[in-house]
């Protein structure tokens, strides 16, 4: 009998061709998908060329998504996107998404069924950990790791120890997966899960929809985590069914698996939460932050640009106007979400409220384009990072929140919760 293992250890063992693995062990894993974007792919392609190989390991298992500076904001970014596009054509890479089909990568790949349960995925983007929501092991790497993955179909890993989060209790009104993960990061700190896998369990997690689960796993990296993961259940199966391109495999942690830590959270005590500048761990309650007046609100990104996020924003904005001192920018994360939001009439609500609605892009989240902040300006954003200069000038500030708090803030002009609105 192999030793009792966590879900993460089981997935890694299976992909390393081993019966068992233990934390700290260095292993070589077969990869199911290798991902890069318009910022990281150019370096990955340059490094791939250095291997001397003419062809990538498998043109159907590489996903390249031009989402960061696209539609291209300037000549330099257009050149970078072109390097990627030329490589796609040369290699016959199948999972490429041109503008018009493109979406923010971590919303797009699950939606299109490219990633599935039981997979091992590396992505040259730190928020690759999002796919843990599907019961996969997914982790962010740099361009050179992605290049080696494109060349060989393998990557080396140190098997991470796991932290188990047991979340119980019903979420209160306007409390979401975003509030849960911000609360966790505030509790353990930005390196609280360094080198470790974050396994989210318990009735509250099981009650979350897929969009919220992806938000939770997306921000594992903001606690320093190597990955975030939620085991497959009927919600996952319903999502994967008819969507997954490949058969998926379900893994579950053994009851006696070993964890570095077990952290219990009573989610019924959570309230809408905001991360103040300049770290995601700098959390406070939204209701205690009403004195923070802001200039811009961004609703979107790989963290909170999915259809549920659009619906919540619309619910808060319906029949209301954006405050006169605020620019509200809403960015559905994929074309499909964009179309769905349009069909549901959400765009009318957004436009009636005087919001700007954009085609999918990472844009403002990383200070790329589509909503850059001037010196001293403040934004509330449903994104994932609020480091110095993240959305623009080094003296600007970003406050992270859920879509509900972001939408309420857009109406109130200062950080607010939906209950504050008339």
């Amino acid at each position: 009998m192999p030793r009792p293992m966590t879900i993460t250890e089981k997935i890694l063992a299976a992909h390393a061709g081993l019966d068992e693995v233990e934390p700290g062990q260095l292993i070589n894993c077969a990869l199911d998908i290798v991902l890069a974007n318009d910022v990281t792919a150019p370096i990955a392609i340059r490094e791939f060329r250095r291997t001397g190989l003419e062809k990538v390991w498998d043109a159907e298992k590489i996903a390249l998504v031009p989402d960061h500076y696209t539609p291209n904001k300037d000549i330099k970014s257009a050149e970078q996107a072109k390097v990627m596009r030329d490589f796609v054509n040369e290699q016959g890479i199948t999972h490429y998404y041109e503008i018009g089909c493109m979406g923010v990568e971590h919303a797009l790949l699950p939606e299109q069924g490219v990633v599935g349960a039981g997979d091992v995925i590396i992505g040259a983007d730190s928020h690759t950990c999002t796919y843990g929501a599907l019961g996969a092991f997914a982790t962010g790497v740099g361009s050179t790791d992605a290049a080696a993955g494109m060349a060989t179909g393998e990557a080396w890993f140190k098997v991470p120890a796991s932290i188990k989060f047991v979340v119980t209790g019903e979420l209160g009104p306007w409390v979401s997966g975003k509030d849960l993960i911000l609360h966790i990061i505030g509790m353990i700190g930005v390196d609280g899960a360094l080198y470790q896998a974050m396994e989210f369990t318990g009735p509250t997690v099981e009650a979350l929809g897929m969009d919220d689960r992806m938000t939770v796993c997306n921000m594992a990296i903001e606690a320093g985590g190597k990955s975030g993961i939620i085991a497959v259940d009927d919600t996952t199966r319903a999502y994967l069914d008819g969507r997954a391109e490949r058969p998926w495999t379900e893994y579950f942690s053994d009851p006696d698996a070993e964890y570095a830590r077990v952290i219990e959270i009573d989610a019924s005590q959570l309230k809408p939460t905001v991360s103040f500048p300049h770290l995601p761990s700098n959390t406070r309650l939204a209701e205690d932050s009403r004195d923070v007046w802001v200039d811009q609100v961004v609703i979107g990104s790989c963290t909170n640009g999915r259809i549920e996020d659009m619906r919540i924003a619309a619910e808060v904005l319906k029949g209301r106007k954006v405050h006169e001192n605020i620019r509200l920018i809403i960015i559905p994360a994929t074309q499909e979400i964009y179309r769905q939001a349009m069909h549901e009439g959400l765009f009318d609500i957004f436009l009636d409220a005087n919001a700007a609605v954009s085609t999918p892009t990472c844009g403002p989240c990383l200070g790329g384009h589509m909503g850059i902040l001037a010196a001293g300006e403040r934004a509330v954003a449903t994104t994932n990072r609020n480091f110095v200069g993240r959305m623009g000038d080094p003296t600007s500030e970003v406050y992270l929140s859920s879509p509900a708090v972001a939408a309420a803030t857009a109406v109130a002009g200062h950080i607010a919760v939906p209950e504050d609105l008339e």
Partner: protein
Amino acid sequence: MKFHGTAHKYGRDIDTDVIIPARYLTTSVPEELAKHCMEDLDPEFVNKIEFGDILVAEENFGCGSSREHAPISIKAAGISVVIAKSFARIFYRNAINTGLAIMESEEAVDGISDGDEVEVDADAGVIVNVTKGETYRAQPFPPFVKDIIEKGGLIEAVKEKVAAHGD
């Protein structure tokens, strides 16, 4: 590998957005990236360092994005080695893979002050503070990681593997 230079010391959680702000990620040319290294944390950084100088920081150095532009810009700016109490994991991999020397040592970070003259023997894992006359030990790399470093980075290791499989 041996290094010798002046230490430039910073705090904890130095993130990749301040190491190289995203507004410069429209290029991957090392010399271009080097001009903006650490700009949002210390605009004078690139002016005050000399080739071979040593970057010292507290915990969780390089947290945030996976951008390899971060270790590339540090290396191209002239920094020979980064010594920190701990590194964010993607940065750790990226540094190993791209050949930026890094060392983990709590005692060195606690002992070294900004401006100290420091000598490093990376192979032996020994850090000498010439200014204060102190010697510190760094955490040794696992053999697997050491192997990548010795080969000259991950791509060199892959090339070797490809050549072995190719025949």
